């Protein structure tokens, strides 16, 4: 990882426009390596212009999110399963 990154906590605001629940505390299973971790723990690049979240285990892109005046795009192909728990 050469670029400066932060983490998935920063996705809470942007993704609140798509999901009603807080997704950053959900557990995401990486489609690349199978690692299971909170989305909050993902490495996030590009904020606040756009958001690319990568798996902390294998660096695969978990999701991409961008907002432009014409609309918003969410690509979650890197997440095999997203598990939301209550409490």
């Amino acid at each position, binding site marked *: 990882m050469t670029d400066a990154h*932060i*983490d998935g*906590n920063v996705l809470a*605001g942007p993704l609140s*426009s798509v999901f009603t629940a*807080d997704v950053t505390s959900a557990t995401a299973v990486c489609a690349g390596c199978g690692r299971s971790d909170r989305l909050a723990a993902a490495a996030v690049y590009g904020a*606040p212009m756009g958001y690319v979240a990568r798996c902390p285990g294998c660096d695969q892109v978990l999701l991409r999110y961008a907002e432009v005046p014409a609309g918003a795009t969410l690509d979650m192909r890197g997440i095999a399963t997203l598990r939301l728990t209550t409490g």
Partner: protein
Amino acid sequence: MAGTTLRRRLGRRRLTARLVGTRDETATARTLRFAVPDWPGHLAGQHVDLRLTAEDGYTAQRSYSLSAPADGEFIEVTVQLVPDGEVSPYLVRDIEVGDVVEVLGPLGGWFVWRPEQPEPVLLIGGGSGVAPLMAMVRARSAGKPPFRLLYSARTPADVYFAGELGGPETVVLYTREAPDGVERAPHRIDAADLKAYGLSPDDAPTCYVCGPTPFVETVTGLLVDAGHDPGRVRAERFGASGG
């Protein structure tokens, strides 16, 4: 305005926050207190996305941790000036009482502490990363559960919330320059500091680590190496750029 249309379509709930007070923490950081009608309350550790809109419609947005616990319609954020930043110079130098900004929040459900958590808590903050940890300290009822705050700061002049940091549960770990009378020579936090000032892995504390990304990577590594369960280590990283 196209942006307004998008926000409506996305159903995002932004609130208007009016500045009601400020408090200088250091020469380059201050705490801003806002009144936010319809604020739903929040948990210690949560943040807001704060947005400024220029007269020409240009907008800039940053995430800031809430540094005080829930208090009716009032929220506080503590902002560090980032030279050449786009948002922080306005918040630290220019905004005046009565001015309004837009906030989205409360945000985040992972890096939070709930008062009903019974287990001990180890808080480790680097620089302005102490802000959400201070909300946790302030949200705790006196004495329970055991809390420990390790706060890494460059010099005494860089310490936020200085008036509240006395007491045996708080240790400021200076990295460049320490005040007279502090025995620990200035250096970056290391394994010996965790052992001397932290909580033992045997106590199974939940650990909250907040700071710049390199700080968080270092500290979370030290915690796991010391025997803390990775599942009990929660982190929040922020970047140096943008500000």
